[in-house]
C-alpha cells in the first residue's frame, strides 16, 4: 500500500492547477462576467469557448493518446486533473457525453478509422455528441428500445423517437441504440449507431429540465436516411445487431468513475463546509448586538420570536466582525449559528458529508488500483453510483439548510440542488442499481 503521489504526478497536478487558474480567469473575463448555464443556448456557446481552450492546451481529454488531443495520462493523473478541475471551480463539461460516455466505447469497439476520424473532433469540441438511448417507453427498461434502423443500400433508415437527450438541442451528433432486427426482442437485434443530427428527417426539440434550462431534447427520426459514411469510418459502432454489448460498456463508464469523479464531490464538500462556517460566523454579530438575548432565553413566551434570537451558546462563538449577511432574522441568527457551529447539527452534517466524499475518493483509489492491475470494472459500479448520487443530494441539502430562506434564490446552490436530484434517476435509477448490486454482487435470486 502506498498512498503518496510520485514526483511526476505532483508535477502534473501543479501544471494543471496553474493552467486552470490562469485560463478560468481569462475565460470568465471573455464571457463578460459569470457565464450562463451550459444548458442554455447562450451558455452553451460560452462553454464551447472553454472547451476549445481546454483542447488547445491538451486538457480536454487528458487520458487519451496524444494523437487524439490527449496527454496519454494515467488514470491516476486523470483523477488528479479532475480534483484540480473541480477545486478550481471550473464549469461542467458540455462535451461530457461524448468524451466520457461514447469515447470509452469507441476505444473498445471502434475501428481505427472511426477512432481517427471521430475522437480528435470530439476533443476539439467541433463535433458535439449527445446520447440517444432513452425513449418515451424505454427508460429504466432500456432493452425495450423501439426506434428502428432499417438496412438499405448504402446506409440505414431511422424511425422513431429518443428523449431526455441531454443538451440534444445544442449538439451536432447523436450516438444511440436502434432496433435493426424488426422481429427481435429485448437485448437482441439492437445496433449502436452514430448519427449526424443534421440528417434530413431528424428533428430535435429542446425542452426544460427541472430548473427550466433547455437541457433536454426529444429527437424524432422520420424516415431519416443515414449514409454509411456519414461519420468517418462508418456509422455502426461494433457489429450490427450487437449494440447492447457496446452500450453496456458505456453504461459501466457512466455509472463508474469516469462520469462522476471524486474530485467533484470533494470540492463541493469543501464549499459546503465553508458555507456552514460562514453561517456560524455571520450570526455572531447580529446576536451580539441584540440586547435581549437573555430575556428571550429566560422566557420563551416573551417577545414575538424570542427563540429566534436567543439560541444556546449564543455567547461562545463571537468574534466574527462586520455586518450581518442578508439572512432573514426568521432563520434565527442565534439558532442557525449554533446549529452551524462546531458540534452543532448542521456542522455535523457537513462533516459527515465531507467524510462521505472522502470515502468516495478512497474507494476510487482502490478501484483504480485494481484497474491498473488489469482487473475489469464490474457491477461494483452500481455501489459507486448509489454512493455518489445520495451524497450529492445530501451535500446540497446541507447547503440549503445553511442558507435557510435564502435557499430558494436562484443561484449556484439552488441550481446544484436541482441537479443533484437527477443523480438518483439518470444513468440507471438507484432502484435499478440496488437490484444489480443485490443480484450480481450479493447473488440474491432474481424475482
Amino acid at each position, binding site marked *: 500500500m502506498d498512498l503518496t503521489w510520485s514526483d511526476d504526478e505532483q508535477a502534473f497536478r501543479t501544471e494543471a492547477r496553474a493552467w486552470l487558474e490562469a485560463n478560468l480567469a481569462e475565460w470568465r473575463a471573455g464571457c463578460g462576467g459569470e457565464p450562463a448555464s451550459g444548458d442554455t443556448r447562450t451558455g452553451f456557446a460560452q462553454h464551447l469557448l472553454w472547451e476549445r481552450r481546454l483542447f488547445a492546451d491538451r486538457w480536454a481529454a487528458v487520458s487519451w493518446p496524444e494523437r487524439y488531443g490527449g496527454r496519454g495520462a494515467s488514470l491516476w493523473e486523470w483523477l488528479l486533473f479532475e480534483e484540480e478541475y473541480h477545486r478550481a471551480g471550473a464549469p461542467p463539461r458540455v462535451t461530457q457525453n461524448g468524451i466520457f460516455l461514447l469515447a470509452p466505447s469507441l476505444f473498445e469497439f471502434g475501428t481505427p478509422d472511426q477512432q481517427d476520424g471521430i475522437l480528435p473532433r470530439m476533443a476539439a469540441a467541433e463535433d458535439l455528441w449527445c446520447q440517444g438511448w432513452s425513449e418515451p417507453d424505454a427508460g429504466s427498461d432500456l432493452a425495450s428500445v423501439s426506434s428502428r434502423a432499417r438496412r438499405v443500400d448504402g446506409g440505414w433508415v431511422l424511425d422513431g423517437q429518443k428523449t431526455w437527450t441531454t443538451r440534444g438541442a445544442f449538439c451536432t451528433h447523436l450516438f444511440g441504440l436502434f432496433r435493426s432486427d424488426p422481429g427481435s426482442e429485448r437485448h437482441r437485434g439492437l445496433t449502436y449507431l452514430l448519427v449526424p443530427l443534421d440528417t434530413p428527417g431528424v428533428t430535435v426539440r429542446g425542452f426544460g429540465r427541472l430548473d427550466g434550462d433547455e437541457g433536454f431534447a426529444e429527437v424524432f427520426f422520420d424516415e431519416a436516411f443515414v449514409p454509411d459514411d456519414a461519420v468517418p469510418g462508418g456509422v455502426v459502432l461494433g457489429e450490427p445487431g450487437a449494440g447492447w454489448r457496446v452500450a453496456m460498456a458505456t453504461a459501466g463508464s457512466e455509472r463508474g468513475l469516469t462520469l462522476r469523479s471524486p474530485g467533484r464531490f470533494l470540492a463541493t464538500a469543501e464549499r459546503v463546509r465553508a458555507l456552514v462556517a460562514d453561517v456560524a460566523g455571520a450570526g455572531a454579530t447580529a446576536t451580539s448586538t441584540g440586547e435581549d438575548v437573555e430575556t428571550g432565553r429566560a422566557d*420563551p413566551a416573551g417577545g414575538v420570536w424570542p427563540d429566534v434570537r436567543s439560541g444556546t451558546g449564543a455567547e461562545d462563538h463571537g468574534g466574527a466582525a462586520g455586518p450581518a449577511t442578508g439572512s432573514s*432574522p426568521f432563520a434565527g441568527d442565534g439558532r442557525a449559528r449554533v446549529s452551524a457551529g462546531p458540534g452543532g447539527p448542521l456542522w455535523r452534517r457537513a462533516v459527515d458529508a465531507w467524510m462521505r466524499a472522502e470515502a468516495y475518493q478512497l474507494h476510487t483509489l482502490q478501484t483504480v488500483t485494481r484497474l491498473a492491475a488489469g482487473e475489469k470494472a464490474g457491477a461494483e459500479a452500481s455501489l459507486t453510483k448509489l454512493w455518489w448520487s445520495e451524497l450529492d443530494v445530501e451535500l446540497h441539502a446541507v447547503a440549503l439548510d445553511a442558507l435557510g430562506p435564502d435557499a430558494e434564490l436562484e443561484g449556484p446552490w439552488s441550481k446544484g440542488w436541482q441537479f443533484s436530484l437527477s443523480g438518483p434517476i439518470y444513468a440507471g435509477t438507484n432502484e435499478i442499481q440496488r437490484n444489480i448490486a443485490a443480484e450480481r454482487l450479493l447473488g440474491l435470486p432474481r424475482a
Partner: protein
Amino acid sequence: MRFAWTDEQLAFAEATRDLLAKECPPAVVRAAGDAPPGGLDRTVWEGLDAMGVLGVAAPDAVGGLGLDETTLVPLLEEAGRVALPHPLVDTAAVAAPLGAAAGGRLVPTDLGGPLVACAADADAFLLWHPPPAPSTPTAIPASTPTANATSRPGMFCTPSDPGDGSCTTFGEGDGQRGALYLVEAGAVTVTPVATVDRGRRAGRVAWSAGDGELVNDDPAVLTLAADRGVLGTAAVLCGLAGTMLDLTVAYVGERRQFGVPIGSFQAVKHHLADALVRLEFARPAVARGAWSSAHPEQVAPLVRQRDVSMAKALAIDAAEACGRAALQCHGAIGYTVESDLHLFLKRSWALARSWGDRGFHTDRVGRALEALDAPAPDAPSPDTATPVAQEDP
C-alpha cells in the same frame, strides 16, 4: 373530545376545492410564473374573495365571516393542493384576523375589494391596501434590531403582483422590535427576485421606517399573527404533499416498464407508502395547531407556539418525503418542466424554509417543552388549573 373537522368546515373546504379545481389548474400556476409585472390573472383570487375565503377569519364587524383557524386551515390545505400563486396565507391567515389589534385601520372595510396582504420569511410582516387608494397605509411590525436595520432590505415576499405596485411584503424595522407600524405605501420599494419557484412572484423589499406610525407593539398580538402564518404555511405544505403523492400514484399506475406498471414494483410501493405515512401523521398535527390557535381561552400561548411549530415541522417532513418520493418515482419525466410535478415541488422547497425552517421549529418546540416542564417537573396533576390542552392534545 372530538378530533375531526365539522361538516360545515368540510363543506367549505369542498366548495373551495371545487372552485380551485376549476379556476386554478396547473396552467394558471404556470401562467402566474410567466406573467409580466402587472399581468397576474386575478380570476381565482376574486373567486376566493367572492366565496368569503379571504375574510374567513376577519371579524364579522368588518364584513368577515368571524370564524377561526379550524375553518381556515382546511381551506389553506386546498390552496396548497393547487399551488395557488396568490398570497392567501398572508392575507387570510395573517392580515385579516388582526382586526382591532391593528388599530382598526388595517382591516379592509370592503372585503369584496382587492385586499392583498403578504408576509414571508420573517417575524415581520406588512399589510397593504393597494390602489385605487395609493396613500392607504401599510403596516409593518418592526423586526430584529440590527446595526444597519433601517437601511437593510427585507427579504422575499409572495406578492400578488410586484409590477403594478400592488405587491405587499414584510420589511425590517427601524431598530424597534415587535411593533406594528402603518407606513405609506409609497415608502415601500419592491424589486422582483429570481427564485426557484417563479409562481411565488417573490420580491425584495426596501422601506424606510421613518415614515411609519406605531399602532401596536404588544408582542402577544404579533406572535399570534406570526404563528398564524406558520400554521397556514404548514397547511399549504400538506396540500402540496398530497398533490405530489396523488400525481405520482396516477403516474406509476399508468407508466409501464418491463411489461408491468411501475407501481407494481415493491420499491415504488414502499417509497410511496413511506411518504403517505409522513403525510397522514402530519395532518393531525396541523389540525391540532388550528384548534390550539382557535382556543386562546383554553390554550396558553406557549402551548400554541409549541403546537404550530410542531405542525410546521411535521408538514415540512411530509412535503419533503412526498416530494422526494414523487420525483424519484416519476423518474426522468418528473425532472422536467413539462410535467406538472415541478410546480408543487418547487413551492414546497420555498415554503419549507419560509416562516421558519425545520431546525428553527424543532428548537422552538423543544424550548417550549422545557418551559412547560419547568413549573411542574413532576407529572402535572389532572385537576390542576393548567389549561387542559397543555397536558392533553
